[in-house]
């Protein structure tokens, strides 16, 4: 199998010393094993994220994403763009779709980007994809399974998909309400998926974790509770915002509600790296505030 190559949009949270830097570490390790080459978009900028709307209107947000699209095309013409962050994926894809549908928006965007010396040319055929799509659609469970050298035996993992990896686009063939791909992936890696986990698409509050912490933490509490109720030892997610929200507020929730949550929240890429035989560092396990001990043990084997 030849090397798979993609134009890559890592997103702000993946930078060094940011909230999802360990995600990035594990993605790199995972891709190495899978022989996937990621061509980082040169000088990419923020997607505007889902909270950018208030001050930045539709056009400024679109301009930001169009800038990335143009830079990607210039650097890696014809390649699909892959994002690891749900918001990045969603923002870019949404903007790309609108540019294809709304001529005024397109022209305004072109005009704006000229100011930055960028010529935006709309490529309707351009695919903007999430890393999970690449794994499932391009590589497939079988091939992923073939790389597993340290099956994650006996680890019960709840697949928390969250919102934006799942809606409104989602992974082809999966349901918005009960996507199963994380469970299938967990199974492929030799772990035990908690299939009945019933909060897999519950919103963690997203950016409102900052501005409306109480409301968001009520959501996170539901997500954690169900994982415990169904016997999960670990939560896995494809989204940096989900990962952070579900992981870092556990102590605050415990304080507020008298609960005793302490459950590791990992990225799928961390699971894969470990299952593929990578060590704890390669899997970015040092980046987990709540240590994924079981993974560390397997990685150390």
């Amino acid at each position: 199998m030849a090397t798979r190559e993609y134009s890559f949009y890592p997103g702000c949270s993946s930078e060094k010393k940011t909230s999802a830097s360990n995600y990035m570490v594990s993605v790199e390790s995972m891709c190495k094993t899978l022989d996937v080459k990621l061509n980082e978009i040169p000088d990419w900028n923020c997607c505007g994220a889902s909270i950018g709307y208030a001050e930045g209107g539709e056009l400024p947000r679109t301009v930001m994403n169009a800038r990335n699209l143009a830079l990607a095309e210039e650097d890696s013409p014809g390649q699909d763009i892959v994002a690891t962050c749900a918001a990045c994926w969603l923002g870019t894809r949404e903007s790309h779709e609108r540019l294809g549908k709304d001529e005024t928006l397109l022209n305004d965007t072109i005009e704006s980007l000229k100011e930055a010396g960028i010529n935006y040319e709309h490529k309707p055929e351009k695919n903007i994809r999430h890393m999970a799509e690449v794994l499932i659609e391009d590589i497939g469970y079988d091939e992923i399974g073939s790389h597993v050298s340290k099956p994650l035996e006996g680890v019960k993992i709840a697949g928390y998909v969250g919102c934006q990896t799942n809606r409104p686009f989602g992974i082809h063939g999966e349901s918005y309400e009960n996507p199963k791909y994380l469970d299938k992936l967990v199974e492929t890696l030799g772990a035990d998926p908690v299939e009945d986990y019933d909060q897999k698409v519950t919103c963690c509050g997203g950016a409102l974790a900052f501005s409306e912490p109480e409301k968001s933490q009520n959501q996170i509490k539901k997500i954690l509770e169900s994982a415990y109720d169904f016997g999960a030892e670990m939560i896995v997610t494809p989204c940096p915002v989900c990962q952070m929200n579900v992981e870092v507020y556990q102590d605050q929730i415990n304080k507020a509600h008298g609960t005793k949550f302490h459950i590791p929240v990992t990225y799928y890429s961390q699971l894969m790296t470990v299952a593929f035989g990578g060590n704890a560092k390669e899997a970015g396990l040092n980046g987990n505030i709540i240590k994924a001990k079981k993974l560390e043990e397997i990685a150390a084997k």
Partner: protein
Amino acid sequence: MSNTAMVKKYRNDFLREVEEKVEEGDWVRMCMQCGVCAGSCPLGDAWEHPPQEIFMMIRAGKREEVLGSDSMWMCTSCYNCIVRCPRELPITHIMHGLANYAHRLGLAPKANPTRRFAKIFWDNIATSGRVNELKLSLGLYFMDGFGNGIKKALAMKDVGLGLLKTGRLDPMGLFKAGGIKDKSGLQKALKKAREIEDTRKGY
């Protein structure tokens, strides 16, 4: 459109305004009042007026109540409403659009934390091209003044410490340039975009 536009009840004045000025606003007319969006919102309890009701209020001409509402600011962008809406209304976007419109008109509730956070966020990325998480958090904590900021920052110190310890927060973030290389190009493009939008929407 001024802040004091006159609208008649159950006439299309305000609806038309929304259609023209608000992102995806031309979908509002298609709502059939089933309420699935209202029931699907994860922060539903916090909505004084759920989306479907906002759509009815728009049709009823309740301009001030809609634009002054903090309901839209409760949107977490979870997209539940969008995928469940039987009429395929892009409700998330309409909520964002209404919030943006209200904010730009100065009618949005001043104290709403999400509105303020969103502004800080945008300023953060529009300046440097990328999120500086430390600046963003501090900006958020200190938006109500120094004293409150210290309090909030203290409350969040464990979270920050956790991130620090695991290498997921840059303690030097405040002092680092960071961001993209072509900041000025991006800033110019965004300035232009803003200008075009202001002209088109008559802000």
